[in-house]
C-alpha cells in the first residue's frame, strides 16, 4: 500500500490479510489463492504488509478491551492515513471486527469477506470458472460463526461453490444453526475446558456424515480445526479441507 500511495495511486480494494493469513503456513496458502484470484480478475489491490497489525479480535474476545482498543486505534490511524474505503479480507474474525467494531472508534469502511467478493466478481463476469475440476463432487460447507450467525452471510460462499458445478451437501446443522468449529472466542489460543469431546471432532463427525469428497471452509481458523478433525478421523489422505478461495484457484489452475 505504501508503494501505491507513494505513486499517488488508489487501489480498488485493500486486501486485509490477517495474522493467520500472514503467518500460519496453511492459511498462507489461502492468502495466496485469493491474491491469485484478484490478479486473474485484474482487480487492483494492495496490502498493508508490515503496516498491518492484529485487529485486536482475539484480545477482545478474551476480555481484554485495552489491548483491543490499542490495536484498533493504531490500525484505524493507518487505514485512515491511506484514506482506505474498501476492504476485503479472508478472515471472518477480521471481517467482523473491521465491519462492526471499528466504526465506533472512527474507522468506517465498506468491508467484504472474500467469499462475497469472489461471488461478486463471478456475477459481474470479471472472473470466470469452469466446473471441470470439481464437477459433480460432493462438497460440504462449514459456516464460520463470525461470517454466518454474526453477520448473516450464508449464501455468498454457497453460490460460489455451486458455480463450480459441484454437489453442495449440507450438514445436519448448517447456516444459522451451524455448529462452531471450536476456535472462536480466543479458544484457538488455549486448551479446551474439560469435557467429553473436542468441538472440532464433533463438527468433523457431522461433516463426515454427509460423505463429502471435500470439506469447504471460509475461515483460516475453521480450516485448522476441521483439518485437525479430519486427521483425527484418519481421513487426512482422501478428504481435503479447502477454503472457498482455494476451490476457485484450483478449478482455474491458478
Amino acid at each position, binding site marked *: 500500500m505504501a508503494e501505491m500511495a507513494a505513486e499517488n495511486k488508489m487501489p480498488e480494494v485493500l486486501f486485509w*490479510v490477517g*495474522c493467520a*493469513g*500472514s*503467518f500460519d503456513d496453511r492459511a*498462507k496458502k489461502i492468502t*495466496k489463492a485469493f491474491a491469485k484470484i484478484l490478479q486473474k480478475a485484474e482487480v487492483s489491490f494492495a*496490502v498493508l*504488509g*508490515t503496516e*498491518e*497489525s*492484529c485487529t*485486536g479480535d*482475539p*484480545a*477482545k*474476545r*478474551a*476480555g*481484554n*478491551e*485495552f*489491548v483491543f*482498543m*490499542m*490495536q484498533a*486505534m493504531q490500525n484505524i490511524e493507518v487505514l485512515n492515513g491511506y484514506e482506505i474505503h474498501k476492504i476485503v479480507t479472508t478472515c471472518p474474525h477480521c471481517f*467482523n471486527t473491521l*465491519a*462492526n*467494531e471499528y466504526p*465506533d*472508534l472512527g474507522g468506517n469502511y465498506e468491508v467484504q469477506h472474500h467469499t462475497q467478493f469472489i461471488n461478486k466478481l463471478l456475477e459481474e463476469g470479471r472472473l470466470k470458472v469452469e466446473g471441470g475440476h470439481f464437477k459433480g463432487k460432493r462438497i460440504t460447507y462449514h459456516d464460520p*460463526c463470525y461470517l454466518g*450467525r*454474526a*453477520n*448473516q452471510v450464508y449464501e455468498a460462499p454457497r453460490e460460489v461453490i455451486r458455480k463450480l458445478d459441484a454437489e453442495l451437501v449440507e450438514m445436519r446443522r448448517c447456516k*444459522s*444453526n451451524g*455448529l*462452531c468449529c*471450536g476456535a*472462536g*472466542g*480466543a479458544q*484457538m*489460543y*488455549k486448551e*479446551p*475446558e*474439560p*469435557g*467429553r*469431546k473436542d*468441538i472440532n*471432532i*464433533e*463438527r468433523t463427525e457431522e461433516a463426515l456424515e454427509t460423505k463429502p469428497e471435500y470439506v469447504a471452509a471460509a475461515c483460516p481458523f475453521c480450516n485448522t480445526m476441521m483439518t485437525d478433525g479430519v486427521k483425527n478421523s484418519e481421513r487426512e489422505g482422501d478428504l481435503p479441507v479447502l477454503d472457498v478461495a482455494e476451490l476457485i484457484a484450483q478449478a482455474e489452475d491458478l
Partner: protein
Amino acid sequence: MDIHFGIQNIIFILALAAAIWAFARQWNKIWRNIKLGKPLDRTDQPGARWKTMARVALGQTKMVRRRYVAGFFHVVIYVGFVLINIEVAEILIDGILGTHRILQAPLGPVYDAAISFFEILAVLVIIACVVFLWRRNVQPVARLRSLSGWPKRDGNYILVIELVLMMALLSLGAAEANMNNLNTEGWLVTSQLAPLFSGLSQEALHWVERGAWWFHIIGILLFLNYLPYSKHFHIIMAFPNVWYSRLSAKGKSDNLERVKAEVQLMMDPEADPYAADAGGNGDDEDERFGAKDVQDLKWVQLMNAYACTECGRCTDSCPAHLTGKKLSPRKIMMDTRDRLEEVGQVIDQKGHWEDDGKSLLYDYTTPEELWACTTCNACVEACPVNIDPLSIIMDMRRYLVMEDSQASAQINTMMTNVENNGAPWAYAQADRANWIKE
C-alpha cells in the same frame, strides 16, 4: 339486563383488588431490580423495534423454527391464552356488576361462535399441556431432562394450573348447558360435555356453575401472582425484552467506553495527562471493567434474566455444552436472575444495598464455565425471545481479565503477543509480508 349485585360481587371486587395490588407490588420490585443495572439507551430505530416485536414476540417466529412439536403446541397454548382472555374480560365484568355473561344478549350468534371457538381452544390447550407434561416428565427431551429442583417443579406447576383452569372453564359451560333458564345450545364443546352433569338437580347445577366460575377466576388471580416468582413471567417480559433486543449484527460486541476514552488519551500526543477528569466522567472512577455482579451489568441484560423461561434451546445449541463442558447459557441466565433476586431481597430487608460478600461471578457462575465459550452466538440465535447470554459471558470475562488478571497462561501469552508483535503468535512484524515472496 339481569343484575344480581350482592355479597358475592363485593367479595369478588375485593379479591380482584387484592390480586392487582399484590401483583403491582411484585412488579415494582422486579423493575427496581432491573434498574439496578447500568443505563443503556436502546430506543433507537423504534420502527424496527416494533416490527421485531411483532414478528418474534407476537408472531412467535423463533418458537416454531426447527422445533416443530414444541413450537406447534406452544403456539396453541399462546393463542389459547391470548384469546380466552377475552372471555376472562367478560368474567371480570360479570363479577363486578353481578351480571351473567353480559355480552351474550347483545352479541347473539357472534357470542355463541366466539364461545365455541374459545372452547375448542381450551380443549387444544388441555391437549398441549398433557403433551408438555409428557415431554417434561415421562419421556423428557434432553434440554428439559437436565432440570431439577425448583425449575422442574415450576414448569410442572404452570402446566397443571393451566390444565385445571381450562377444565374449570369447560365445567362451567357444561353445567350451564344443563340449566333450564340458559341458552347454551350453540356452544360446540360444552354441549357435548353436558351429559357429565345431566343427573344433577337444578339446585346442584347452580352450585357446580358457581363453583367452577369462582375456581376459574380465583385460579387466574392466584396464577397472576405466581408469575413474578416463576419462569412463566416470560409471558409478560418477552414483549419488552424483544423490543429492547439488539438490532445490530450479532457479531458486534460493544466497545467499553471508558477503555476507549483512556486509550484515546494515551494515543493523543496533545493530551495533558494531568488534566482533571481525564477518563471521561469523573463519577465513573469506581466503575469496574466488566461485570463481577449483577449491578455491573446493563439493565437490558437483567431484563433478559426475567424474560428467560428456561426452555434450554440456548444450551441445546451451545457447542461447549454439546461436547460436555460445564458452560450452559441457560444457567448463565438463571444464575443472573437468582443472584438479582438475592440482591433484591437484601434491599427489601435493609432498605438499601449492603454488600453481602457474594457475587454473580464466583458464587453463581464459575470461570471454568465462562472460558468454555467460543462466542459463536448459537445461544443468541436460538433464543425465542432474543435473550443475549453471550454479552453477559463476555462482561464477566472482561472482569476476569481486566480486574482480576485471571486469564490462563496461554491466554496471557496470546495477549502479550498481540500487544508486542501485533499478532496472537510470536512472529516478527517484519515477516508479515513474507508470504508474497514464498
